[in-house]
Structures are given as C-alpha cells and as structure tokens.
C-alpha cells in the first residue's frame, strides 16, 4: 500500500506532448518536498475533450482506464486544473458513483497548486522570479475546483483561499500585476478554440491586452497558456505565458536523472 508520500503523477496530454518542462517542474517540486513521484507511462487522456464534445461513450472508456491506472495511489497530482476538475467533478456525468473507492480516488486527485496549499501549507520553495507577472485564473480551476474567489459570488458565500496568489507570494522578486477583469476566460475552451477561432482569438487578445503591464502571465493550465502563446505569437505583443510550476521550481535544481 502506497503512503501519502507516494504520489501518482498525472500528466495530461497537452503537457505530455507540448509542455514536458511543466511535467518536470512538477516532478522537481514534489521530489524536493520529499515525495516519491510515480509516473505510469501507460497513462492516457482523462476523457475531457470527449465529455465536452458530448461523446459520453468514448469519455467513459477513457475515464475507466484513468481510474484503473491510478488506483494504487492515495494522492494523485496533476499540473492542470481542468483535467483535475474533470476527474473530480465530471466523471459523475458518466455515471461514476459518489461513494466507494473510485469516489475517494477522485477526491484525492489534486491540481498541483491546490495540493501545495491545502495539503502542504504553502511551502516556500525558495523560488525567485524577479518579474512583473499577471495571473490567468483558469475557469475550471476557479469555478469547479474553487482555487480562488470568484467575482460572481455574493457576500454570504464561504470565503475561499486564493491558491495561485498565495503560492506566488512565496516567490521572491515577483511583482503581481493586477488585471481589470480578474477571472475573465481566455477563450480557449477546447473544441471551442477550433470551432470558433474568430471569437476565441479575440477573447485571447483581450486578455493579453489586459495583462499588458506584465512581462509574464501565469496560471495552472497549460492548455489556456498555449492558446495565449499562440495568440501572442501571432500579434507579437503581450506577456509571455509560463506555467505556475515553472515559476515555483525556479529555485530548485534539475530533476535527478535517477
């Protein structure tokens, strides 16, 4: 039986294919904090793209596969809010129960930042990032996982911590640049980005303009950041997207080659 310190590393497709450095930053952080990180190279997509396009049957196959692969870990950590939101909240749409081992496993699947703040008390990783940084609050992390306060809620809502801001607070030299629309969507939205390119890229441009005082824009989701990177490469202006894990790992050495 694995202990709490044995972490199942869940690397979503985008990270695997397009941002492996984010995967490694995650490994470095977790190992620095004394965890044993287990990566199963046979793991697959969690099924989110299929859930979002309405292909419930395909999504269910992927979801079952995902749960089986990670069953032996007590904590599963992933550098992506939207994939964690899928596992934790949306597998229910596929008929997975709210009780028993699978439900427990889903509840123990964490977005990296949330794991650091809620389980490890916001450790100081000695990170240094002397830049002006804007924060992209990715929607699924914010509204499904509750990683930060939502601009829509009334005064009598339960107060929530602000995971990413708290973690960025531990980074020396970093100056957080405020945004006029704290939790506006960047316009990615998976298949939306492809079916509605005009609107999607216009939304992306608006976010980059809003962040224009910053040198970097960071967040918990590689997919949103890649979309912004694509828009930025096209327009030639705006802050450089960088994943939260990379900023947090900036004070740590290279991952061991084992």
């Amino acid at each position, binding site marked *: 039986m694995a202990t709490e310190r044995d972490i199942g590393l869940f690397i979503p*497709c985008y990270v695997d294919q397009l941002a492996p450095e984010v995967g490694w930053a995650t490994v470095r952080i977790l190992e620095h904090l004394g965890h044993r990180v287990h*990566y199963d190279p046979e793991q697959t997509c969690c099924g989110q793209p299929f*859930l979002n396009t*309405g*292909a419930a049957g395909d999504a269910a196959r992927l979801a079952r596969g995902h749960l089986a692969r990670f069953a032996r870990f007590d904590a599963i950590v992933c550098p992506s809010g939207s994939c964690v939101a899928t596992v934790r909240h949306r597998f229910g*749409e596929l008929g997975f129960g709210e009780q028993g081992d699978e439900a427990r496993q889903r509840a123990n699947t964490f977005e990296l930042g949330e794991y650091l703040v809620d389980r490890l008390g916001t450790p100081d990783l000695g990170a240094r990032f002397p830049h002006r940084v804007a924060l992209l609050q990715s929607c699924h992390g914010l509204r499904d996982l509750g990683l930060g306060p939502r601009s829509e809620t009334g005064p009598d809502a339960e107060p929530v911590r602000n995971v990413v801001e708290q973690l960025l607070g531990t980074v020396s030299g970093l100056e957080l640049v405020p945004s006029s629309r704290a939790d506006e969507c960047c316009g990615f939205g998976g298949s939306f980005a492809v079916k509605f390119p005009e*609107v999607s890229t216009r939304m992306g441009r608006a976010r980059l303009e809003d962040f224009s005082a910053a040198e970097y824009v960071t967040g918990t989701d590689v997919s949103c950041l890649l979309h912004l990177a694509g828009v930025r490469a096209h327009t030639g202006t705006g802050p450089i997207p960088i994943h939260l894990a990379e900023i947090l790992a900036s004070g740590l050495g290279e991952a061991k080659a084992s």
Partner: protein
Amino acid sequence: MTARLDQRAREVLADEDAVRRHDASVFDLRQRRDAAVAEVPDWEALRERASGIKRHLLDHLDRYLERFETQARAAGVRVHWATDAASANRIVSELLAARQVRQVIKSKSMLTEECGLNPVLEARGIEVVDTDLGERIVQLAGEPPSHIIVPAIHRSRFEIGALFHRTMGTPEGESDPERLTRLARADLRRKFTEADAAITGVNFAVAETGSIVVVTNEGNADLGMSLPNLHIACMGLEKLIPAMSDLPVFLRLLARSATGQPISVYTSVVTGPRPGAELHVVIVDNGRSELLASDGHRGALGCIRCGACLNTCPVYRKAGGYAYDQPIPGPIGAVLAPSLRAKEGGAELAQASSLCGSCSAVCPMRIDLHGQLLAWRRENRTAGALERVVTFVAATAMTRPALFGAAGRTAANFWSLLGRRFAGNPAASWLHGRELPEHPGESFRAQWLRRRETPK
C-alpha cells in the same frame, strides 16, 4: 469547419471600435451588478431560495396554473391558453381585430419577440409601437433586439441620432443621449395617448392571487396599462410563482442582476382590470412543456430574463447578440434555442461556449447554464457523423497507451507542417489569429522513459 456563429461574428469583430464599445458597455452592466450584489448580505441564500421556490413551482406547475387561472378569473381577467407561437399570435390578433384596434403600444416582452408577434399584427394592418426606448430604436432601425435588457446596446449615440433624424425628423447631428431621450419621449407620448390597446409581457404571475407583475424602469408598461381600455399581457407558462410572499425573493434578485439597481423603478402588481377596462392574459407554452419533461433541461424554465448571463459571457460580449441569430442571444438563448425552435440553427449554439461557467455562477436562479449546454451537446451527437468517427478513432488511440505514445512521437514530425498556412491544413482554424506553439520534440513520456527506470 468553423461554426456559423463564428462566421457571423467575423463581420462584427472587423469593426474594432464597435467591439470595444460593446464589450465595455455590456461588462459595465456586469460590474454594476457586482457592486449591487456586494451590498446584499444574503445574496447566495436568496439565489438558493429562489431556485428552490421555482423547483417546487415547476414540479407542481399544473396545480399552480389552474390556481392562477381561477384567481385571475375571479378578479375579472380573461385567461387564454396558447400551445405554440402561432396560436398565441392568433389569439392576440383576434382580440385586437374584434375590437377594431388600429394602434397598439407595446412594452418589452421577450415572449412576443420569440413568437414573432409584431409582423403578424402588422400584416393585419395594425400599427405596433414598441415603447421601451431601446426596443423603439431597434424597431425604427428595422432590426431585432441584440440584448434582452438593453436591446440597442450595439448602437452608438451617433447611429441613434442619425436614425431619429431619418425616422422622426429630429434635428440633424443630435447625438446627446439626454436630448435624444426627450425627443423620443415626446414622440412616444403622442403614440401612448392615441393607442387603442396595450400589449405587455409578464415578469411574474402570482398563483395565490391571480396577479401579474410587470417591471420597467421607463414607466412605459404603466402608461400602457393606464391609458387604453384594452390590455393584453402575454406570459410564458413558467412565469408563475406560488404566493405573493415569494415575490420579494425574486424582485430582490432581478434588477440587481440586470442593471445593478436595487429594484426597478416601477414594479406593478396588477390584480384584475382597471375599472371599465379589459385585461386579457395569454398563457403560452411554445416548447416549454417539453423542457419541463426533461430532467436535464427543466432548470432553464427558472430563467427570469435578467440578462446577467449575457453580460458576463465573454463570447456574447465579443460576438454581439446578432451572431446568435435567435430571439434570445447569449448563454440562456443558446440553452433555450433548440426547444423554442423560433429559428433554424439553434442546436449549433450549444457549441458556442468556452464552458467558462461564469454564466452559471452569475445566474440569480442558479441555472446550470453551461451544464445545460453540455447536455445539448450530448443529445445532438447524432448530427455530425464524421466528427463522431474521428473522435472514436482518437478515443481508441488514447485508451491504448502504445498507440497514444506513437501518435505523440509522430505528432512532433507533423507539427511544423501543421504550423504553416496552406490549403487543406487541418489546423487551419487554429491558425486563424493564432500560431501553433513550438513542439518540444520529445514528449514527457519519452523523456521519462529515457531518463528514468520506471519501477513496476
């Protein structure tokens, strides 16, 4: 490949100034809403209460409709039932024809917009004057409303000034909102006093007392209900609430969500006709009972048409109301379009969302709007056969890790090719206003296998 909404949006988005103005003025409404909500210590509790009352109401809708009918009749109201848009329009036009009505003043009603009532009446030679200023503007321009609360939000003061000059003969070059409003007021006052009948919507209908509740800021509905001797109120059958004591729950949410006002200027609870006048209430189904029968979609019937989900929606703010090409735009319009079937093309709108979820979070009735869009996506799967095959193949590849890995390695090789713009490039729509990110060359999985021994 790209959706029709996106193609329609392309035109709008070409005018950079117009997009910025639209986005800013709609977002301004959202911010006013936030400021108003911050002053309500029991906001979330109110939302919970309102959605609970509506759930109860919808679960007992037959009983409450009958109760409303009985009470309204007892108060002297004539109650009519319409299964669909056509019969609603027929009932209204026959009522007007039977009384030789020539001129009707109308206050805002999204239901009559949904039913397409105006053209039906005009075809019978009846002059219909929309009196809400925003609605009047789009009526004079020959356009549909682009927002459910502020119908002319897509127009600038200069466009409106020119329109008034052309249609009402106001001074040329006038673009001051206050003076334009005064000019419209004077023009419409005359219409109010000449009209033989008034048509209004209904914001709420109280089953307990048979009352209808009509809410406006401009006072146009109140003028309509006070002057002519015939008042026809059209309501969707979901507008009911059980009792008068439930009404403040909804009123405290409505105006704050819509414009950030603590309450609208006029909230008129009408029980029975004015002495000497007639009051008719037309209860309209038009697809609503079908929504009611579906567990997945019933929640949408809780909508109080506040417009908050439009104001918060980044897609609506950028693309504008017309890109939706439906009587109701925005998230709630996309949710309702497939069942109201006012116009073709409604099903596609379920895709027109990045699923950011802000609509559901802002909705005073706690309608799970983005969840409902997902439900429509599931139900409309059969439509795109090709897309289905492709996702099946992709899903198969993704459940078989070896294949998934191979696809990853090969992907790197194809990547640089995809990044170029050429005819038939499957990544073409990504490359619209965006570049492909650089490919790292080697996937995380490949790097891990190379750098680490994985203990089994």
